[in-house]
Protein backbone atom coordinates (compact mmCIF):
# COMPACT_ATOMS: atom_id res chain seq x y z
CA UNK A 1 0.00 0.00 0.00
CA UNK A 2 2.79 2.33 1.04
CA UNK A 3 4.82 1.67 -2.06
CA UNK A 4 1.62 2.20 -4.08
CA UNK A 5 1.37 5.73 -2.68
CA UNK A 6 5.04 6.33 -3.47
CA UNK A 7 4.55 5.17 -7.06
CA UNK A 8 1.43 7.34 -7.32
CA UNK A 9 3.37 10.32 -5.92
CA UNK A 10 6.21 9.82 -8.39
CA UNK A 11 3.77 9.50 -11.27
CA UNK A 12 2.04 12.70 -10.12
CA UNK A 13 5.41 14.50 -10.08
CA UNK A 14 6.20 13.24 -13.60
CA UNK A 15 2.74 14.20 -14.85
CA UNK A 16 3.14 17.65 -13.28
CA UNK A 17 6.46 18.14 -15.08
CA UNK A 18 4.91 17.09 -18.41
CA UNK A 19 2.03 19.54 -17.86
CA UNK A 20 4.54 22.32 -17.12
CA UNK A 21 6.46 21.48 -20.32
CA UNK A 22 3.36 21.72 -22.53
CA UNK A 23 1.85 24.70 -20.68
CA UNK A 24 2.79 27.37 -23.30
CA UNK A 25 0.76 25.44 -25.88
CA UNK A 26 -2.08 24.34 -23.63
CA UNK A 27 -2.97 27.18 -21.28
CA UNK A 28 -4.28 30.74 -21.51
CA UNK A 29 -1.90 33.69 -20.85
CA UNK A 30 -3.50 34.22 -17.41
CA UNK A 31 -2.68 30.62 -16.37
CA UNK A 32 0.80 31.00 -17.83
CA UNK A 33 1.41 34.11 -15.68
CA UNK A 34 0.28 32.19 -12.59
CA UNK A 35 2.58 29.26 -13.43
CA UNK A 36 5.49 31.64 -14.06
CA UNK A 37 5.00 33.18 -10.62
CA UNK A 38 4.65 29.75 -9.02
CA UNK A 39 7.84 28.42 -10.64
CA UNK A 40 9.76 31.54 -9.61
CA UNK A 41 8.62 31.03 -6.02
CA UNK A 42 9.46 27.33 -6.24
CA UNK A 43 13.04 28.15 -7.29
CA UNK A 44 13.39 30.62 -4.43
CA UNK A 45 11.88 28.11 -1.99
CA UNK A 46 14.27 25.33 -3.10
CA UNK A 47 17.24 27.68 -2.70
CA UNK A 48 16.17 28.96 0.72
CA UNK A 49 15.56 25.35 1.75
CA UNK A 50 19.13 24.49 0.70
CA UNK A 51 20.57 27.36 2.74
CA UNK A 52 18.33 27.16 5.81
CA UNK A 53 17.02 23.59 5.72
CA UNK A 54 20.24 21.76 4.88
CA UNK A 55 22.97 24.34 5.53
CA UNK A 56 21.42 25.44 8.83
CA UNK A 57 21.98 29.09 7.86
CA UNK A 58 18.72 30.68 9.03
CA UNK A 59 18.67 33.84 6.93
CA UNK A 60 15.60 35.97 6.36
CA UNK A 61 17.35 38.34 4.00
CA UNK A 62 17.07 36.32 0.78
CA UNK A 63 15.17 39.21 -0.84
CA UNK A 64 18.46 41.13 -0.91
CA UNK A 65 19.78 38.83 -3.64
CA UNK A 66 16.56 39.00 -5.68
CA UNK A 67 16.96 42.79 -5.63
CA UNK A 68 20.69 42.73 -6.38
CA UNK A 69 20.10 40.40 -9.34
CA UNK A 70 17.36 42.68 -10.67
CA UNK A 71 19.33 45.91 -10.25
CA UNK A 72 22.58 44.43 -11.60
CA UNK A 73 20.74 43.14 -14.67
CA UNK A 74 19.15 46.54 -15.26
CA UNK A 75 22.54 48.21 -14.87
CA UNK A 76 24.30 45.90 -17.32
CA UNK A 77 21.46 45.69 -19.87
CA UNK A 78 20.17 49.26 -19.79
CA UNK A 79 22.90 51.52 -18.45
CA UNK A 80 25.94 49.68 -19.86
CA UNK A 81 24.04 48.53 -22.97
CA UNK A 82 25.29 44.94 -22.79
CA UNK A 83 23.54 42.16 -24.68
CA UNK A 84 21.07 40.04 -22.67
CA UNK A 85 23.33 36.99 -22.97
CA UNK A 86 26.10 38.94 -21.23
CA UNK A 87 23.98 40.97 -18.81
CA UNK A 88 22.34 37.88 -17.31
CA UNK A 89 25.52 36.00 -16.23
CA UNK A 90 27.09 39.32 -15.23
CA UNK A 91 24.12 39.94 -12.89
CA UNK A 92 24.65 36.46 -11.42
CA UNK A 93 28.35 37.23 -10.91
CA UNK A 94 27.48 40.44 -9.04
CA UNK A 95 25.06 38.50 -6.81
CA UNK A 96 27.78 35.92 -6.16
CA UNK A 97 30.19 38.68 -5.15
CA UNK A 98 27.59 40.26 -2.84
CA UNK A 99 26.76 36.81 -1.42
CA UNK A 100 30.42 36.28 -0.50
CA UNK A 101 30.68 39.72 1.12
CA UNK A 102 27.45 39.36 3.08
CA UNK A 103 28.47 35.89 4.31
CA UNK A 104 31.87 37.24 5.39
CA UNK A 105 29.99 39.79 7.52
CA UNK A 106 27.41 37.40 8.95
CA UNK A 107 29.05 33.97 9.26
CA UNK A 108 29.77 34.27 12.97
CA UNK A 109 26.10 34.96 13.76
CA UNK A 110 23.70 32.12 14.53
CA UNK A 111 19.95 31.57 14.96
CA UNK A 112 17.96 34.75 15.71
CA UNK A 113 21.03 36.98 15.45
CA UNK A 114 21.73 35.68 11.92
CA UNK A 115 18.08 36.09 10.94
CA UNK A 116 17.95 39.70 12.12
CA UNK A 117 21.44 40.47 10.78
CA UNK A 118 20.57 39.22 7.28
CA UNK A 119 17.31 41.18 7.39
CA UNK A 120 19.16 44.39 8.31
CA UNK A 121 21.65 43.85 5.45
CA UNK A 122 18.77 43.37 2.99
CA UNK A 123 16.95 46.51 4.15
CA UNK A 124 20.19 48.52 3.95
CA UNK A 125 20.78 47.33 0.40
CA UNK A 126 17.22 48.35 -0.50
CA UNK A 127 17.91 51.87 0.80
CA UNK A 128 21.16 51.98 -1.18
CA UNK A 129 19.28 50.85 -4.33
CA UNK A 130 16.77 53.68 -3.88
CA UNK A 131 19.63 56.21 -4.03
CA UNK A 132 21.58 54.78 -6.96
CA UNK A 133 21.83 57.29 -9.81
CA UNK A 134 20.39 56.02 -13.10
CA UNK A 135 18.07 53.44 -11.47
CA UNK A 136 15.04 55.73 -11.01
CA UNK A 137 15.46 56.42 -7.29
CA UNK A 138 12.67 55.39 -4.93
CA UNK A 139 10.09 54.87 -7.68
CA UNK A 140 12.35 52.64 -9.82
CA UNK A 141 12.49 52.35 -13.60
CA UNK A 142 10.72 50.42 -16.35
CA UNK A 143 12.41 48.17 -18.85
CA UNK A 144 12.08 49.73 -22.31
CA UNK A 145 9.71 48.09 -24.77
CA UNK A 146 12.51 47.27 -27.22
CA UNK A 147 14.25 45.13 -24.57
CA UNK A 148 11.03 43.30 -23.72
CA UNK A 149 10.36 42.75 -27.44
CA UNK A 150 13.53 40.60 -27.65
CA UNK A 151 11.39 37.97 -25.83
CA UNK A 152 8.58 38.19 -28.37
CA UNK A 153 6.84 40.76 -30.52
CA UNK A 154 3.43 40.17 -28.92
CA UNK A 155 2.50 39.78 -25.25
CA UNK A 156 1.50 36.05 -25.42
CA UNK A 157 4.79 35.21 -27.15
CA UNK A 158 6.70 37.19 -24.53
CA UNK A 159 4.87 35.42 -21.70
CA UNK A 160 5.72 32.04 -23.25
CA UNK A 161 9.41 32.87 -23.64
CA UNK A 162 9.74 34.16 -20.07
CA UNK A 163 7.76 31.13 -18.80
CA UNK A 164 10.15 28.74 -20.58
CA UNK A 165 13.13 30.55 -19.03
CA UNK A 166 11.56 30.37 -15.56
CA UNK A 167 10.72 26.68 -16.01
CA UNK A 168 14.30 25.97 -17.17
CA UNK A 169 15.71 27.75 -14.10
CA UNK A 170 13.35 25.85 -11.76
CA UNK A 171 14.35 22.50 -13.31
CA UNK A 172 18.04 23.47 -13.24
CA UNK A 173 17.76 24.51 -9.57
CA UNK A 174 16.07 21.22 -8.70
CA UNK A 175 18.62 19.10 -10.58
CA UNK A 176 21.59 20.98 -9.09
CA UNK A 177 20.28 20.59 -5.55
CA UNK A 178 19.39 16.92 -6.13
CA UNK A 179 22.87 16.19 -7.54
CA UNK A 180 24.48 18.09 -4.66
CA UNK A 181 22.47 16.17 -2.07
CA UNK A 182 23.38 12.82 -3.70
CA UNK A 183 27.09 13.66 -3.51
CA UNK A 184 29.57 13.31 -0.65
CA UNK A 185 29.07 17.01 0.16
CA UNK A 186 25.30 16.49 0.26
CA UNK A 187 25.76 13.63 2.70
CA UNK A 188 27.67 16.04 4.95
CA UNK A 189 24.88 18.61 4.54
CA UNK A 190 22.24 16.07 5.55
CA UNK A 191 24.32 15.26 8.65
CA UNK A 192 24.68 18.97 9.40
CA UNK A 193 20.90 19.39 9.12
CA UNK A 194 20.30 16.61 11.65
CA UNK A 195 23.05 17.31 14.20
CA UNK A 196 25.70 19.97 13.76
CA UNK A 197 27.89 18.89 16.69
CA UNK A 198 27.73 15.25 15.60
CA UNK A 199 28.51 16.23 12.00
CA UNK A 200 31.65 18.13 13.04
CA UNK A 201 33.12 15.12 14.88
CA UNK A 202 32.18 12.88 11.94
CA UNK A 203 34.59 15.01 9.91
CA UNK A 204 32.12 17.35 8.18
CA UNK A 205 33.73 20.75 7.66
CA UNK A 206 30.59 22.50 8.86
CA UNK A 207 32.03 25.98 8.34
CA UNK A 208 32.86 25.27 4.69
CA UNK A 209 29.58 23.55 3.74
CA UNK A 210 27.47 26.28 5.38
CA UNK A 211 29.43 28.93 3.49
CA UNK A 212 29.21 26.99 0.21
CA UNK A 213 25.42 26.67 0.52
CA UNK A 214 24.93 30.36 1.17
CA UNK A 215 27.39 31.68 -1.42
CA UNK A 216 26.44 29.27 -4.22
CA UNK A 217 22.69 29.86 -3.72
CA UNK A 218 23.15 33.64 -4.06
CA UNK A 219 23.71 33.79 -7.88
CA UNK A 220 20.77 31.43 -8.47
CA UNK A 221 18.56 33.72 -6.35
CA UNK A 222 19.94 36.63 -8.39
CA UNK A 223 18.98 34.81 -11.59
CA UNK A 224 15.41 34.46 -10.29
CA UNK A 225 15.55 38.21 -9.55
CA UNK A 226 16.37 38.84 -13.23
CA UNK A 227 13.45 36.68 -14.34
CA UNK A 228 11.08 38.39 -11.92
CA UNK A 229 12.20 41.74 -13.38
CA UNK A 230 11.42 40.47 -16.88
CA UNK A 231 7.96 39.36 -15.72
CA UNK A 232 7.21 42.69 -14.05
CA UNK A 233 8.89 44.79 -16.74
CA UNK A 234 10.43 47.10 -14.14
CA UNK A 235 12.71 47.44 -11.15
CA UNK A 236 11.95 49.33 -7.96
CA UNK A 237 13.45 49.18 -4.47
CA UNK A 238 10.15 48.24 -2.84
CA UNK A 239 9.22 45.49 -5.35
CA UNK A 240 12.68 44.12 -6.21
CA UNK A 241 13.77 44.01 -2.53
CA UNK A 242 10.32 42.99 -1.24
CA UNK A 243 10.74 41.05 1.99
CA UNK A 244 7.12 39.87 1.93
CA UNK A 245 7.28 38.51 -1.62
CA UNK A 246 10.79 37.01 -1.74
CA UNK A 247 11.42 35.95 1.85
CA UNK A 248 8.26 35.74 3.99
CA UNK A 249 6.15 33.89 1.40
CA UNK A 250 9.16 31.68 0.58
CA UNK A 251 9.59 30.91 4.26
CA UNK A 252 5.89 30.04 4.50
CA UNK A 253 6.20 27.70 1.50
CA UNK A 254 9.19 25.83 2.93
CA UNK A 255 7.86 25.63 6.50
CA UNK A 256 4.45 24.25 5.54
CA UNK A 257 5.93 21.95 2.88
CA UNK A 258 8.77 20.61 4.99
CA UNK A 259 12.13 22.17 5.80
CA UNK A 260 15.17 20.10 4.83
CA UNK A 261 13.52 17.94 2.18
CA UNK A 262 13.32 18.11 -1.62
CA UNK A 263 9.58 17.44 -1.64
CA UNK A 264 8.76 20.18 0.90
CA UNK A 265 9.18 23.25 -1.36
CA UNK A 266 7.13 21.58 -4.14
CA UNK A 267 4.23 20.76 -1.80
CA UNK A 268 4.51 24.16 -0.10
CA UNK A 269 4.36 26.01 -3.44
CA UNK A 270 1.20 24.09 -4.43
CA UNK A 271 -0.48 24.88 -1.09
CA UNK A 272 0.60 28.52 -1.14
CA UNK A 273 -0.77 29.22 -4.63
CA UNK A 274 -3.94 27.28 -3.92
CA UNK A 275 -4.57 29.43 -0.82
CA UNK A 276 -3.62 32.58 -2.70
CA UNK A 277 -6.09 31.87 -5.49
CA UNK A 278 -8.85 31.01 -3.03
CA UNK A 279 -8.31 33.82 -0.52
CA UNK A 280 -6.66 36.74 -2.31
CA UNK A 281 -9.95 38.65 -2.57
CA UNK A 282 -10.32 38.67 1.23
CA UNK A 283 -7.51 41.21 1.82
CA UNK A 284 -5.87 40.99 5.22
CA UNK A 285 -7.83 37.83 6.03
CA UNK A 286 -5.63 36.10 3.45
CA UNK A 287 -2.44 37.09 5.29
CA UNK A 288 -3.95 36.21 8.68
CA UNK A 289 -4.87 32.76 7.31
CA UNK A 290 -1.30 32.21 6.04
CA UNK A 291 0.08 33.25 9.43
CA UNK A 292 -2.34 31.01 11.33
CA UNK A 293 -1.50 27.99 9.13
CA UNK A 294 2.23 28.63 9.65
CA UNK A 295 1.79 28.73 13.44
CA UNK A 296 -0.29 25.53 13.45
CA UNK A 297 2.24 23.71 11.29
CA UNK A 298 5.19 24.83 13.44
CA UNK A 299 3.35 23.77 16.63
CA UNK A 300 1.84 20.47 15.51
CA UNK A 301 3.86 19.34 12.49
CA UNK A 302 7.31 20.95 12.69
CA UNK A 303 8.54 18.75 9.83
CA UNK A 304 5.83 20.17 7.56
CA UNK A 305 3.24 18.42 5.42
CA UNK A 306 5.88 16.30 3.72
CA UNK A 307 7.27 15.28 7.13
CA UNK A 308 3.81 13.97 8.10
CA UNK A 309 3.39 12.11 4.81
CA UNK A 310 6.90 10.69 4.91
CA UNK A 311 6.31 9.19 8.32
CA UNK A 312 3.39 7.24 6.86
CA UNK A 313 5.13 6.32 3.61
CA UNK A 314 8.51 5.49 5.15
CA UNK A 315 10.43 6.72 2.10
CA UNK A 316 11.01 9.74 -0.11
CA UNK A 317 9.26 10.46 -3.40
CA UNK A 318 12.49 11.94 -4.72
CA UNK A 319 15.17 9.39 -3.82
CA UNK A 320 18.27 10.72 -2.11
CA UNK A 321 19.23 7.75 0.04
CA UNK A 322 22.33 5.58 -0.37
CA UNK A 323 21.53 1.89 -0.33
CA UNK A 324 23.85 -0.42 1.67
CA UNK A 325 24.15 -3.03 -1.06
CA UNK A 326 23.71 -1.57 -4.51
CA UNK A 327 24.91 1.98 -4.12
CA UNK A 328 21.86 3.23 -5.96
CA UNK A 329 19.08 5.41 -4.73
CA UNK A 330 16.35 3.57 -2.91
Amino acid at each position, binding site marked *: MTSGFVIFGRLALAAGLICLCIAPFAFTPAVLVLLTQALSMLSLAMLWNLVAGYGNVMVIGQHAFVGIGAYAFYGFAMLAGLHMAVALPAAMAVTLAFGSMVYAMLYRLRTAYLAVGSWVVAETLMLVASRLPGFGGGSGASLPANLLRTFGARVPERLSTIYIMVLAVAVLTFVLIWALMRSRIGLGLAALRDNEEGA*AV*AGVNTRLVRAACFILAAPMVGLVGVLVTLQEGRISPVASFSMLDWTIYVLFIVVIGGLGSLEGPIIGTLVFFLLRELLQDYGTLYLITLGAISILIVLFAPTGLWGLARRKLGRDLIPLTH*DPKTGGAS
Partner: protein
Amino acid sequence: MLEVSQLKKHFGALKVIDGVNLSVARGEALGILGPNGAGKSTLFNLISGNLSPTAGTIRLNGEDITRASPWTRVRGGIGRTFQIPHPFVHLSVFENVLVSATQASGRGIAVARPEVNRILDLCQLSHRSRTLAGDLPLLDLKRLELAKALGTSPRLLLLDEIAGGLTNSECVALLAILETIKSEGVTIVWIEHIVHALIKVATRLVVLAEGNLIANGTPETVMADAKVRDLYLGVEA
Protein backbone atom coordinates in the same frame (compact mmCIF):
# COMPACT_ATOMS: atom_id res chain seq x y z
CA MET B 1 50.27 10.13 21.30
CA LEU B 2 48.09 12.63 23.20
CA GLU B 3 49.56 15.26 25.51
CA VAL B 4 47.29 17.53 27.54
CA SER B 5 49.11 20.25 29.51
CA GLN B 6 47.71 22.59 32.13
CA LEU B 7 44.30 22.41 30.46
CA LYS B 8 41.63 24.71 31.90
CA LYS B 9 38.02 25.35 31.02
CA HIS B 10 36.15 27.94 33.03
CA PHE B 11 32.54 28.96 32.49
CA GLY B 12 32.56 32.29 34.32
CA ALA B 13 33.45 31.54 37.91
CA LEU B 14 32.84 27.81 37.45
CA LYS B 15 36.13 25.95 36.94
CA VAL B 16 35.06 22.75 35.20
CA ILE B 17 38.58 21.77 34.16
CA ASP B 18 41.31 23.36 36.23
CA GLY B 19 44.83 22.56 35.13
CA VAL B 20 44.66 18.93 33.94
CA ASN B 21 47.86 17.24 32.74
CA LEU B 22 47.40 13.94 30.91
CA SER B 23 49.46 11.79 28.52
CA VAL B 24 48.21 8.83 26.56
CA ALA B 25 50.68 6.50 24.83
CA ARG B 26 50.05 4.91 21.44
CA GLY B 27 48.12 1.63 21.77
CA GLU B 28 47.18 2.32 25.39
CA ALA B 29 43.66 1.86 26.78
CA LEU B 30 43.06 4.55 29.40
CA GLY B 31 40.00 4.60 31.62
CA ILE B 32 38.66 7.82 33.15
CA LEU B 33 36.59 7.68 36.30
CA GLY B 34 34.96 10.47 38.23
CA PRO B 35 31.72 11.51 39.88
CA ASN B 36 29.02 13.39 37.95
CA GLY B 37 30.09 16.97 37.26
CA ALA B 38 33.79 16.13 37.60
CA GLY B 39 34.51 17.54 34.12
CA LYS B 40 35.02 14.25 32.23
CA SER B 41 32.81 15.04 29.23
CA THR B 42 34.14 18.61 29.16
CA LEU B 43 37.65 17.16 28.92
CA PHE B 44 36.53 15.10 25.90
CA ASN B 45 34.88 18.16 24.35
CA LEU B 46 38.16 20.03 24.69
CA ILE B 47 40.18 17.18 23.15
CA SER B 48 37.73 16.72 20.26
CA GLY B 49 37.47 20.48 19.60
CA ASN B 50 33.78 20.87 20.48
CA LEU B 51 34.90 23.38 23.14
CA SER B 52 37.84 25.77 23.24
CA PRO B 53 39.96 25.76 26.40
CA THR B 54 40.40 28.79 28.63
CA ALA B 55 44.12 27.94 28.92
CA GLY B 56 46.55 25.09 28.29
CA THR B 57 47.62 23.05 25.28
CA ILE B 58 46.59 19.82 23.58
CA ARG B 59 49.11 17.97 21.40
CA LEU B 60 48.41 15.04 19.12
CA ASN B 61 51.52 13.19 17.92
CA GLY B 62 53.57 16.25 18.91
CA GLU B 63 51.43 18.69 16.94
CA ASP B 64 49.63 21.49 18.78
CA ILE B 65 45.91 21.08 18.03
CA THR B 66 44.60 23.33 20.81
CA ARG B 67 42.86 25.72 18.40
CA ALA B 68 42.16 23.25 15.58
CA SER B 69 38.55 22.68 14.43
CA PRO B 70 36.79 19.38 15.28
CA TRP B 71 36.96 18.18 11.65
CA THR B 72 40.72 18.91 11.48
CA ARG B 73 41.19 16.79 14.61
CA VAL B 74 39.12 14.01 13.04
CA ARG B 75 41.50 14.06 10.07
CA GLY B 76 44.37 13.91 12.57
CA GLY B 77 42.96 10.63 13.88
CA ILE B 78 40.68 11.55 16.79
CA GLY B 79 37.29 9.80 16.80
CA ARG B 80 34.74 10.17 19.56
CA THR B 81 31.34 9.12 20.85
CA PHE B 82 28.96 11.26 22.89
CA GLN B 83 27.43 10.25 26.22
CA ILE B 84 24.03 11.20 24.77
CA PRO B 85 24.07 9.76 21.23
CA HIS B 86 24.20 12.27 18.37
CA PRO B 87 22.62 10.29 15.50
CA PHE B 88 21.66 11.83 12.16
CA VAL B 89 18.03 10.95 12.72
CA HIS B 90 16.72 11.33 9.17
CA LEU B 91 19.49 9.18 7.67
CA SER B 92 19.66 5.40 7.71
CA VAL B 93 22.14 3.56 9.92
CA PHE B 94 24.24 2.82 6.83
CA GLU B 95 24.25 6.50 5.82
CA ASN B 96 25.18 7.60 9.35
CA VAL B 97 28.38 5.60 9.15
CA LEU B 98 28.86 6.57 5.50
CA VAL B 99 29.00 10.23 6.60
CA SER B 100 31.95 9.63 8.89
CA ALA B 101 33.63 7.24 6.43
CA THR B 102 33.57 9.79 3.60
CA GLN B 103 33.88 13.24 5.17
CA ALA B 104 37.13 12.96 7.10
CA SER B 105 39.03 10.90 4.56
CA GLY B 106 37.67 12.54 1.41
CA ARG B 107 36.84 9.05 0.07
CA GLY B 108 34.05 8.74 -2.45
CA ILE B 109 30.77 7.06 -1.48
CA ALA B 110 31.41 3.95 -3.61
CA VAL B 111 34.95 3.54 -2.22
CA ALA B 112 33.80 3.87 1.39
CA ARG B 113 30.92 1.38 1.04
CA PRO B 114 32.84 -1.87 1.89
CA GLU B 115 34.45 -0.25 4.95
CA VAL B 116 31.03 0.93 6.18
CA ASN B 117 29.62 -2.59 5.81
CA ARG B 118 32.65 -4.01 7.70
CA ILE B 119 32.09 -1.55 10.58
CA LEU B 120 28.36 -2.34 10.69
CA ASP B 121 29.24 -6.04 10.91
CA LEU B 122 31.73 -5.38 13.71
CA CYS B 123 29.19 -3.30 15.66
CA GLN B 124 26.40 -5.85 15.03
CA LEU B 125 24.29 -3.35 13.14
CA SER B 126 24.16 -4.95 9.69
CA HIS B 127 20.56 -6.07 10.17
CA ARG B 128 19.62 -2.44 10.90
CA SER B 129 21.51 -0.85 8.01
CA ARG B 130 18.35 0.47 6.29
CA THR B 131 16.62 1.60 9.51
CA LEU B 132 16.38 5.33 10.14
CA ALA B 133 18.67 6.29 13.03
CA GLY B 134 15.77 8.15 14.65
CA ASP B 135 13.91 4.84 15.02
CA LEU B 136 16.68 2.92 16.85
CA PRO B 137 16.42 1.65 20.46
CA LEU B 138 19.06 2.72 22.99
CA LEU B 139 21.43 -0.24 22.57
CA ASP B 140 21.57 0.21 18.81
CA LEU B 141 22.00 3.97 19.22
CA LYS B 142 25.05 3.26 21.39
CA ARG B 143 26.38 0.83 18.78
CA LEU B 144 25.74 3.41 16.06
CA GLU B 145 27.60 6.04 18.04
CA LEU B 146 30.58 3.69 18.16
CA ALA B 147 30.22 2.77 14.48
CA LYS B 148 30.19 6.44 13.46
CA ALA B 149 33.36 7.06 15.45
CA LEU B 150 35.02 4.02 13.83
CA GLY B 151 33.96 5.31 10.40
CA THR B 152 36.46 8.15 10.77
CA SER B 153 39.28 5.52 10.96
CA PRO B 154 40.47 6.84 14.34
CA ARG B 155 43.89 6.19 15.81
CA LEU B 156 42.70 7.69 19.10
CA LEU B 157 39.16 6.73 20.12
CA LEU B 158 37.38 8.72 22.85
CA LEU B 159 34.44 6.78 24.34
CA ASP B 160 32.04 8.72 26.56
CA GLU B 161 29.99 6.32 28.73
CA ILE B 162 29.35 3.97 25.85
CA ALA B 163 28.19 1.21 28.25
CA GLY B 164 25.75 3.41 30.18
CA GLY B 165 22.24 1.95 30.28
CA LEU B 166 23.23 -1.43 28.83
CA THR B 167 22.30 -4.76 30.40
CA ASN B 168 25.03 -7.20 31.50
CA SER B 169 24.82 -9.29 28.34
CA GLU B 170 24.80 -6.16 26.15
CA CYS B 171 27.85 -4.96 28.06
CA VAL B 172 29.66 -8.25 27.38
CA ALA B 173 28.93 -7.86 23.66
CA LEU B 174 30.24 -4.30 23.72
CA LEU B 175 33.44 -5.40 25.49
CA ALA B 176 34.07 -7.95 22.75
CA ILE B 177 33.79 -5.16 20.14
CA LEU B 178 36.16 -2.94 22.10
CA GLU B 179 38.70 -5.77 22.43
CA THR B 180 38.65 -6.16 18.64
CA ILE B 181 39.19 -2.43 18.16
CA LYS B 182 42.01 -2.44 20.70
CA SER B 183 43.68 -5.40 19.00
CA GLU B 184 43.74 -3.37 15.77
CA GLY B 185 46.12 -0.92 17.50
CA VAL B 186 43.60 1.85 18.17
CA THR B 187 44.39 3.90 21.28
CA ILE B 188 41.34 4.10 23.55
CA VAL B 189 40.36 6.66 26.18
CA TRP B 190 37.15 5.59 27.87
CA ILE B 191 35.02 7.52 30.37
CA GLU B 192 32.80 5.06 32.21
CA HIS B 193 30.92 4.63 35.46
CA ILE B 194 30.58 0.85 35.02
CA VAL B 195 33.91 0.05 36.65
CA HIS B 196 33.83 -3.73 36.15
CA ALA B 197 33.50 -3.19 32.39
CA LEU B 198 36.09 -0.45 32.27
CA ILE B 199 38.84 -2.40 33.98
CA LYS B 200 38.38 -5.29 31.55
CA VAL B 201 39.66 -3.01 28.76
CA ALA B 202 41.68 -0.28 30.48
CA THR B 203 45.36 -0.82 31.23
CA ARG B 204 45.53 2.41 33.21
CA LEU B 205 42.98 4.50 35.11
CA VAL B 206 42.83 8.18 36.01
CA VAL B 207 40.27 9.75 38.31
CA LEU B 208 38.93 13.24 37.78
CA ALA B 209 37.22 15.22 40.55
CA GLU B 210 36.22 18.88 40.51
CA GLY B 211 38.25 19.53 37.38
CA ASN B 212 41.50 17.97 38.64
CA LEU B 213 43.18 14.56 38.32
CA ILE B 214 43.32 13.01 41.76
CA ALA B 215 44.68 9.57 40.85
CA ASN B 216 46.63 7.94 38.05
CA GLY B 217 47.92 4.39 37.80
CA THR B 218 47.08 0.75 37.14
CA PRO B 219 43.46 -0.24 37.82
CA GLU B 220 44.51 -2.12 40.98
CA THR B 221 46.48 0.84 42.39
CA VAL B 222 43.78 3.41 41.59
CA MET B 223 40.92 1.31 42.95
CA ALA B 224 42.88 0.82 46.18
CA ASP B 225 43.68 4.55 46.51
CA ALA B 226 42.17 5.93 49.72
CA LYS B 227 41.21 9.29 48.16
CA VAL B 228 39.46 7.58 45.25
CA ARG B 229 37.57 5.23 47.53
CA ASP B 230 36.50 8.16 49.68
CA LEU B 231 35.66 10.74 46.99
CA TYR B 232 34.36 8.57 44.20
CA LEU B 233 33.36 5.18 45.51
CA GLY B 234 32.02 6.56 48.82
CA VAL B 235 34.03 3.99 50.81
CA GLU B 236 35.76 5.40 53.87
CA ALA B 237 39.51 4.80 53.99
